Every structure is written in C-alpha cells, then in structure tokens.
C-alpha cells in the first residue's frame, strides 16, 4: 500500500519492524513494544531524522544500520540487548500548563 491512515493493525501483528528513521514510525513501533531495526538512508536524510535514531540507539532501544549493511544486521541481530521504551507523559505537559495559566 501507499499511504494508510494508520499502521496500528500491521504493527500489532508484526514480530519485527524494519523502518526508516522517521520519528512517527520509530515511536509508534517502540510504544507497541516491537523490536525495531532503523535503516538510515544517508543520501536521502536530513540530519534531524538521524538525531532521534542515534539517541534511541544510544539508549539501547533500537538496532540501527544503513541500507548497505541491513542484511548483516538482520543476520546478527540480538534483540535481548534492547531495553523497553517507556511511554511519553503528556500529563506532565498538562500539569505545567495549568500552572502557567494559573489553574493550579
């Protein structure tokens, strides 16, 4: 398929996700607790996509490779080394905002 409104169903059924470094794709996958391999396309990417992928990799949440070493990465992959990704907390934003506007 080209574009779907949501990949939530496919994600739910997947055992492994191989994705580009887009934030939406990475975060949605990690939130569903699926193992993720992020593929960086150095030719296409602008640096800012790389920042999040690098950080997630540094924190031990994803595996990470380029198009050229994808095969080796998949062959050698060991997901037991990956750490679970805690969800973001929008409640913190709500609390902060309540103080800002004087609701607290």
């Amino acid at each position: 398929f080209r574009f779907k409104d949501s990949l939530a169903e496919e994600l739910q059924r997947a055992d492994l996700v191989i994705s580009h470094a887009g934030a939406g794709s990475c975060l949605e996958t990690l939130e569903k607790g699926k193992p993720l391999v992020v593929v960086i396309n150095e030719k296409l990417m602008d640096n800012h996509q790389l920042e999040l992928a690098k950080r997630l990799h540094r924190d031990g949440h994803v595996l990470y490779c380029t198009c050229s070493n994808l095969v080796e990465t998949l062959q050698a992959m060991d997901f037991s080394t990956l750490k679970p990704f805690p969800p973001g907390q929008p409640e913190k934003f709500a609390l902060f905002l309540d103080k800002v506007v004087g609701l607290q």
Partner: protein
Amino acid sequence: TGGHTTEILRLLSCLSESYSPRHYVFADSDKMSEAKILAFEQKRAEKFSKSQFTLDRIPRSREVRQSWTSSVVTTLYSILYSLPLIYKLKPDLILCNGPGTCVPVCLSALLLGLLGIKRAIIVYVESICRVETLSLSGKILYYFSDYFIVQWPDLKEKYSKSVYLGRMV
C-alpha cells in the same frame, strides 16, 4: 503538518476542559491534519460533554529546506493571513510545536501584544525529534516565546532558558 499534528494532539490529550475553545491553525497544503484533529476532537467529545473547536488554514510558510531568503518572503506572506486571523481569535494561549506555520502565528500574536490589542502566552514545545539541535522555528521562537519546552536533556543544557519536563509524547 503530519508528525507535528500527531505530536501536538498527544500533548493536548491530558488538558482539562478549561482549555476551550480550541482553535487549530494549520497550513493550507496540509491534507492529513484535519482528519487527525477531527478524530481527536470526536474522542474528546465522548469524554467531555461539549467540544468547542475551530479549524483555520493559512498559506504554508516554508517548504522543507527552502532557502532562508525566500522563506522570509513566504513567511511574510503567511503573516498577511495569520495577522487578521489572530486578531479575530484573540487567543489567551498559543501552543505550538515547530511546524513552519507556527512562526507567522506567533509573530502575529507578538505584534498584537506590542500594539496593546491582545497579549497571548506563547508556549512552544520542541518536537521529540529534536534531540541535539533545535528546528528553525525553535531557534526563532526560543527568543519570542514565554515558555520554551524541550524533550531531551541535551537541549536543556544548550538552551538554558528552556524548560525540560522529560519526554511528553
């Protein structure tokens, strides 16, 4: 646009009923945000009795990687639309998270504040994608926002006036 809309809707997810009415402003070229916003507001209407919101479009202020000089021109063009819109809406609070659209909106609000017409509190939340560097909108609004929130500690270190609350989306 897409990712920004998803993020900001997540940020809005825990806000109380006091934050009403909500006025969503997005780029005219954006095809997907409207559906996401409507879905969000529909869910919200199930929880809270009434859901007051509006949708407004302004010309897109900047394409990805558009040159600096032409961006100034296109942003000024967007301000021609955002200024009457913000004057009409007179918001108390502006929440934005980095798409080019937020620059003309915030600059319009600042102008109205300077003219003594309406002073809005501007809260900027940098996208979760920004771990080490700020977006262009962020670099601009770091100086013009009332509260500038970042979601990664590296940015808090680099930008001392920013607020770090941890990862929120």
